[in-house]
């Protein structure tokens, strides 16, 4: 995973609420066996409309998406995070996220930033006016080149992993002894936990 400290650029002022993972990446795109190339299917139903917010020239290549409540609800498909990354989106700012989506986003280095609705409304207005938005992960603030400055909270562990681009599996395997202890205790106390074969 790539290290992320600062994301800066145009933000797409979408604001739509309850965006589910079928909208982010429709099921027909899930047949891939690779993580790449899903950007072509990202937000397909929205982008089928000419002049849609994703494809207007001003928003091409924008790294940030501004969205409404409950972003990423629906299925657990991680393809949603891959599709967004593949179309160039590195961060979503919304008032709330579905639990599964924010976990998937984190694991793929997509920043899911939670801000108050009023602050997002303000960012929507300045973004529509062409402002540059910056997410400074180290200092936990979202700023704009129009004098805005909004602090956000993030889990310290996630912050550390994102900033250092850490591989979570390697981190966990450092606790290998504790896992082995649990397995040994389980084999002793609850041997029935290993499935009977057939």
């Amino acid at each position, binding site marked *: 995973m790539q290290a992320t400290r600062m994301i800066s650029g145009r933000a797409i002022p979408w604001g739509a609420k309850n965006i589910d993972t079928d909208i982010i990446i429709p*099921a027909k795109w899930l*047949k891939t066996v690779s993580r790449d190339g899903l950007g072509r299917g990202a937000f397909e139903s929205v982008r089928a409309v000419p002049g849609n917010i994703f494809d207007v020239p001003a928003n091409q290549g924008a790294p940030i998406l501004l969205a409404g409540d409950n972003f990423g609800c629906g299925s*657990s*498909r991680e393809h949603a995070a891959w599709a967004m990354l593949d179309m160039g989106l590195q961060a979503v700012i919304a008032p709330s996220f579905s639990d599964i989506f924010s976990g998937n986003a984190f694991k793929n280095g997509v920043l899911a930033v939670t801000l108050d609705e009023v602050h997002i409304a303000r960012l929507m207005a300045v973004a529509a006016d062409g402002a540059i938005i910056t997410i400074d992960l180290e200092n936990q603030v979202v700023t704009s080149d129009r004098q805005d400055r909004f602090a956000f909270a993030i889990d310290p562990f996630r912050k550390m992993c994102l900033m250092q681009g850490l591989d979570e599996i390697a981190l966990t395997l450092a606790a290998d002894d504790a896992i082995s202890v649990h397995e040994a205790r389980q084999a002793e106390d609850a041997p029935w936990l290993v499935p009977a074969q057939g």
Partner: protein
Amino acid sequence: MSKARTLYEKIWDAHVVARRDDGTCLIFIDRHLVHEVTSPQAFAGLAANGRQVRRPDLTLAVPDHNLPTTPRVDAAGKPIPIADAESAAQLATLEANVRSFGVPYIGAHDVRQGIVHVVGPEQGFTLPGTTLVCGDSHTAAHGALGALAFGIGTSEVEHVLATQTLWLAPSKTMAVVVEGALAPGVTAKDVILHIIGQIGTAGGTGHVIEFMGSTIRNMGMEERLTISNMAIEGGARAGLIAPDATSFAYLQGRPMAPKGAAWDAAVRHWQSLPSDADAVFDKCVPINAADIAPSVTWGTSPEDVVPITGHVPAPESFADPAKQDAARASLAYMGLNPGTAMQDIAIENIFIGSCTNSRIEDLRAAAAILRGRRKAENVRWAIVVPGSGLVKAQAEAEGLDRIFTDAGFEWREPGCSACLGMNPDKVPAGERCASTSNRNFVGRQGPGSRTHLLSPAMAAAAAVRGRLTDVREYL
């Protein structure tokens, strides 16, 4: 005296391997179900880093999402190749991965094959008090047996394969307490649709829902699986139902369940799991069973629920302006006008299947309505897709397949099918489907498809009349 705990807290405490300062815990995973859609990138990640599957013995792989549900072998018993190249590649990748990583596998031509969430309980792979994960959000279903079960993404699939653990933050707890007897014609599906209509699709966010009360206790295991399956539509990551004599009777003798002395020891442990009488939940929602009617959805969110005797609501009838906008968009997509009686809505497609409602009890309930009847002329396409090969065999032994085909339904091979339109089973754009599945999202059953969620008996009634129909008229 130790603190009173909920079922969720007891399972959580027994699986903590390590704890971080912020309260996040490394949780041991007892059961991992793998299917073809969310696993290829995870296995590729293992291979790229030279890692192994830590506990193949706690893992089980089954293909389901994009297997075609048309016959899989020809008249001579030879496998029929899968026409869609991408589906074929994904299925072949799963087979190659289970072979090279030594993961137990139930293949497409095995009678035990089916939807992961049907196969797990059916094989006795799912057990009370275990932690169970799968790269699919309806993993919540397994909570019906008292397993802490939830969907995970592909990075987490890779993490579990490599370490048999996951880092998790503890959830809040929510009790949904359903009390009383259900009226005739009201099924588990109506109960869960009603609950989601009450709490909304964000009602359970951040929580694990424990379904309790006399209505749930009096349900059989298959009904409980339908309830817990849709906990995710209520916003919760997992659903739970306390294990009891019904759960033990369901599990005893299943192929992968404990046997002999191990079974007795397991039952003793399971009996200690139900929430303590004085355990405290963060949220509690009481539901009166007598208030529940046969229910159906009108919009594109599972919370858009009305009784079948009701009408399509007007967007202005919602207090929340955001919900008004969502309702307007839903009605435009669904091609419906406010005030239309639900029973006046004509239906062209019927889908009986999915991990919510494809078990034997579901098929019996639908067949009971269809016996001696036929689908209406305007119903263009009606299919029944059993949840597993074993369900299919059982239904055939009972003659249910004949009732369905005599009624004009197609009788299919097991899989996810038209639940998500990943395989060839899709609802055409602009057409309606009365569906026993769990999601009515935009495009879920195929681009432009319009889904009305309901119970198997209600789907059968809709097939007979060609419109959404109150099943009570056929009882």
